[in-house]
């Protein structure tokens, strides 16, 4: 316990130099935790929204269905197999039928995806109840982004044209029953939702679907030919990749700050070793080995991170807690980002994040503190006492 006590004493004795390093390092602590927490919060928020509104507990896709290839949509449908139909009958799944169509808002042609969903479904948190047909007209549901891009309002009638299962063009008027506000652009942009049975009838695709969304926590997943189950891991892979990319981009900022702090500590260590050679010589004369002096100087440097952790906790915890409660209001037009961002982002700080950050900074600081002390290993006591490096 002698070395840590001496190290702390020396560090505190260095005064302003120590506190400058500590403050910069504490900023790194807070910034890393804040930014990583923000990305974690954003990632969780997006994933939760996607699962809640679109993905459920995973999806069965018709073998020809490829959401990234609209040209295959024409063939991407088929009769729902019995094992999956059983799940649908038990409200453990809901089918979605997807087809390409065209609308003509304000006289202009606009290709869209026409999607059919059961108005009574409860599998996903989607406002399909507005699709209950009441007066023979076809109700349609669109999102705010779609409404904005087409200029459609509730009650508007619009012509939709499509090709049915036999390849015949057909068209009908539909009316906008509701405009939903959702944070998930994947169920909004370029899409019009209508009742599933109506769509099946219009398309000539009785009992067919393009995909089937499973309810959350369904453990028994039947294996059926012609249909592939897509797990949440698969469905969320793009989002995970996006978050990872954003995290990497964001980390440049705090890595830069951390680099500055490390440079300051490295500089302090180099200066310390240069200026305190006589002190080292005196310690050696009193019986300290070079190894103990290296330990002392390394620990002095490493303790910067401990002090920084304490300082960061003093101002960082209130800031981070306040931010976690208040959230970060997204700027105007945030919903054009193409990902399921809410109006506010709420950071999530996990114990792993805090512990990992502490360990990262402690390790990096210790390494940076140790590097300059290697010179001490070659230091002769007589040279040190004269204030010279060997």
């Amino acid at each position, binding site marked *: 316990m*002698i070395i840590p006590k*001496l190290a702390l*004493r*020396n560090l*505190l*004795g*260095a005064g302003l130099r120590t506190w400058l390093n500590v403050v910069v390092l504490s900023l790194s602590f807070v910034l890393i935790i804040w930014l990583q927490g923000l990305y974690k919060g954003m990632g969780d928020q997006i994933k939760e929204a996607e699962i809640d509104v679109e993905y459920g507990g995973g999806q069965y896709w018709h073998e020809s269905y490829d959401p990234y290839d609209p040209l295959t949509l024409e063939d991407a449908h088929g009769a729902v197999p019995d094992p999956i139909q059983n799940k649908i009958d038990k409200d453990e799944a809901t089918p979605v039928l997807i087809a390409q169509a065209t609308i003509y808002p304000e006289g202009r042609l606009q290709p869209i995806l026409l999607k059919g969903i059961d108005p009574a479904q409860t599998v996903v948190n989607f406002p399909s109840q507005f699709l209950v047909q009441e007066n023979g007209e076809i109700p349609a549901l669109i999102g705010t982004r779609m409404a904005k891009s087409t200029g459609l309002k509730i009650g508007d009638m619009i012509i939709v044209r499509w090709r049915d299962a036999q390849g015949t063009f057909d068209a009908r008027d539909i009316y906008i029953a509701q405009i939903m506000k959702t944070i998930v652009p994947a169920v909004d942009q370029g899409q019009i939702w209508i009742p599933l049975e109506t769509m099946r009838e219009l398309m000539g695709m009785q009992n067919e679907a393009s995909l089937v969304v499973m309810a959350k926590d369904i453990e028994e997943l039947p294996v059926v030919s012609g249909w592939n189950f897509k797990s949440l891991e698969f469905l969320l892979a793009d989002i995970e990749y996006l978050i990872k990319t954003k995290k990497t981009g964001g980390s440049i900022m705090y890595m830069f700050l951390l680099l500055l702090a490390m440079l300051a500590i490295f500089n302090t260590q180099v200066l310390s070793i240069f200026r305190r050679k*006589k*002190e080292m*010589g*005196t*310690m*050696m*004369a*009193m*019986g*300290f*080995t*070079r190894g*103990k002096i290296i330990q002392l100087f390394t620990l002095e440097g490493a303790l910067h991170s401990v002090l920084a952790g304490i300082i960061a906790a003093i101002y960082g915890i209130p800031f981070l807690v306040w931010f976690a409660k208040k959230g970060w209001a997204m700027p105007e037009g945030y919903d054009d980002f193409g990902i399921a961002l809410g109006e506010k982002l709420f950071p999530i700080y996990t114990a792993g994040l805090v512990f990992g950050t502490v360990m990262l900074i402690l390790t990096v600081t210790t390494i940076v503190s140790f590097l300059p002390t290697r010179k001490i290993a070659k230091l*002769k*006591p*007589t040279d040190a*006492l004269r204030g010279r490096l060997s």
Partner: protein
Amino acid sequence: MDNSYLIRTKDLVKTYPVGQTKLYALNRVNLDFKPGEFAGLVGPSGSGKTTFLNIVGSLDSPSEGSVVVMGKKIEDLSHKQAAWLRNKNIGFIFQTFNLLPVYTVYENVEFPLLLLNLSPKERKEKVIKALEWVKLADRAKSKPAQLSGGEGQRVAVARAIVKEPSIILADEPTANLDAENSFNILDTMEELNHELNTTFIFATHDEKVIKYLRRKITLVDGKVAKDEVYEQKNSKGDN
């Protein structure tokens, strides 16, 4: 080996390379020191006084010859063994005091005890005793920057004697002190020499110090030119 000697050097040579040649800092030095001696190495700058103290203090090693301190051959000691010898048996006093600036007087004096595995209570007793010896108990909480030169050197003396070593090596201890402080320090060291039977070896060319010596060894160009022993302190500074 004759155990009555605390330090014995035999044909001690220390050379430093200077270009293609060697500079002899010490050249065939044969000296013995008994417990309780109050001796000094005198001579002009470059005569090898500090080099001799460094080797005896196990801070440096001889180029040739043999140095035995407290029964240990300096040339055979590892770095750790040398550090242990210094920690247990040798106290150093330097010309520039070499106090650690961030520590208080108390902590500076306590410093050599930290490696000795003493309990805090034992350490405290020894530090207080050492500070009382040098009459600085009332300045225990002061920082080195708050002390006068004389006080600073007295702290250095207290730090050297706190572990009650067998040998204290003092390199020009009065060089930075005025006459009054020099005499105070020397009186203190003489008292400790009597009280604790500690061997003091000085490296000096200060006449004030020479007056106190009971043995004066004159070094010239790394060789022993004279080795004089006095019954009592050499109060006239007589050569």
